[in-house]
């Protein structure tokens, strides 16, 4: 091509390129996007799960700073107890729990369960948050440690019993990823240490792997599934004259404002880690299913944003009077 024709093409292209677009404001929008590069921001994933519980076990969610959450968990008897026991509903066990957000990532909690008259306390700390953008993190991770004391009478009072025999400990690492708005998944390596066990063949320290997930159906409704796998040869004794099984639960989460209502079907009776990991003696196949529900209600005790706003207003006032 000749130089002149080249020039012509270039000019034509330029004219075409600079023809005003349908919406002139798009230019301004481009300018705005340029001024604030979007990639510079980190976008943290929120609400991997709706509640701090998947079903019986914890989800990696923590309460925000200053938020007190009151949880009431119910587990009824077995459905296969029949009509006489109103399919288990005559025989409810509950756990009443309180948890509080010291910071957005650090929570403390306390609970009392009917089942074995257990008091439990826990610490929960979110160490990683799933994010995209400037900081990329594929998963969220929360560490969990709990200590519990059984306050019911010893099985054999004639024996010499130690207070330490009432205590047990649970440790969990919760690793979760929100794959999409609909689908979240959590893996929960778990250790339960029992100071006292029935026989020498039973392991004091039981290793288990929990797995759970949720599928969100609508903004307020989700299905949760939770499974705790206990590798064999750790628990050989029966519990309440029945073989111990892995815990499997399936449930529905319904959220309304400050409440989360969870209803589920499970083969576990207990609502603390030792109970559902090491003492689940229901067999799904035989119909040993417990209907249960959790209700949680949050109260904002300390309000970070409000305090911040008040402080800002005070400072503005001061500045105004000074000026």
């Amino acid at each position, binding site marked *: 091509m000749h130089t002149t024709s*080249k*020039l012509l*093409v*270039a*000019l034509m*292209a*330029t*004219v075409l*390129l*600079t023809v005003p677009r349908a*919406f*002139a*404001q*798009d230019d*301004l*929008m481009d*300018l*705005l996007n340029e*001024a*604030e590069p979007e990639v510079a*921001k980190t*976008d943290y*994933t*929120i*609400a991997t799960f709706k509640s701090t519980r998947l079903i019986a076990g914890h989800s990696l969610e923590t*309460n*925000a*700073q*200053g*938020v007190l959450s009151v949880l009431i968990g119910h587990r009824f008897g077995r459905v296969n107890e029949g009509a006489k026991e109103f399919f288990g509903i005559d025989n409810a066990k509950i756990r009443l729990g309180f948890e509080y*957000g010291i910071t*957005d990532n650090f929570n403390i909690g306390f609970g009392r369960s009917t089942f074995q008259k257990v008091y439990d306390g826990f610490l929960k700390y979110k160490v990683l948050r799933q994010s995209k953008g400037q900081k990329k993190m594929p998963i969220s991770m929360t560490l969990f440690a709990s200590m519990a004391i059984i306050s019911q009478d010893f099985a054999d009072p004639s024996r010499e019993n130690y207070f330490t025999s009432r205590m047990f400990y649970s440790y969990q690492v919760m690793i979760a990823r929100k794959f999409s*708005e609909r689908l979240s998944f959590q893996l929960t390596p778990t250790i339960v240490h029992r100071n006292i066990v029935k026989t020498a063949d039973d392991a004091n320290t039981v290793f288990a792997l929990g797995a759970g997930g949720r599928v969100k159906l609508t*903004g*307020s409704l989700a299905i949760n599934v939770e499974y705790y796998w206990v590798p064999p040869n750790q628990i050989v004794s029966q519990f309440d004259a029945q073989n111990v099984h892995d815990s499997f639960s399936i449930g529905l989460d319904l*959220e*309304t*404002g*400050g409440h989360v209502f969870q209803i589920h079907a499970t083969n576990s009776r207990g609502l603390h880690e030792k109970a559902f990991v090491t003492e689940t003696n229901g067999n799904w196949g035989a119909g040993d299913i417990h209907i249960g529900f959790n209700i949680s209600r*949050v109260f*904002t005790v300390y*309000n*970070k*944003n*409000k305090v911040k*706003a008040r402080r800002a207003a005070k400072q503005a006032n001061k500045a105004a009077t000074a000026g």
Partner: protein
Amino acid sequence: MKKFLFIAIATTAAISPALAQKYLSKSAHVSFYSDTPMEKIEAHNRQGTTVVDFEKNEMVFTVLMKSFEFEKALMQEHFNEKYVESATYPKGTFKGKFTPKGEIALVKDGTYPVTVEGTMEIKGKTNAVTAEGVFTVKGGKVSGTSKFEIKLADYGIKIPGAVKDNIAETVQVNVDAQYDAYNK
């Protein structure tokens, strides 16, 4: 090819106005209020970004949905997760033109009322919006304020029956931006 590019850029530059009267803010304050007998909800976003072009009388506005701060942490989570679905629709945008009632003199202190007309996009839905606003010039600084209402249903934001009495169908939006001259 190099020559082509050079000419293209040079021509574009030549066509563009030499001194654009553009103003930018990255810390615009956008707040909204939902008021029902049951509950008052307000949220503040102090990281709105906006550009105003006083030559063409155009303006654009964007806010990151996740930057709205609520009184209660759970409200903020529900706002993002259930109502505006921030993960899918991270931004709210407005683009439009404004008609000054009288001439705007950027060199002179004063308040200049305008009528803003344009389109607002929230949660992937676009609606035409008209609002009254005021530009204020004081000591060489330009600021803009406006108040208008948004009907949640227009943007596909559904309020579940259980919290119907707690969230208003129409929310009041306040905008307050301190602009800086944009030179580039």
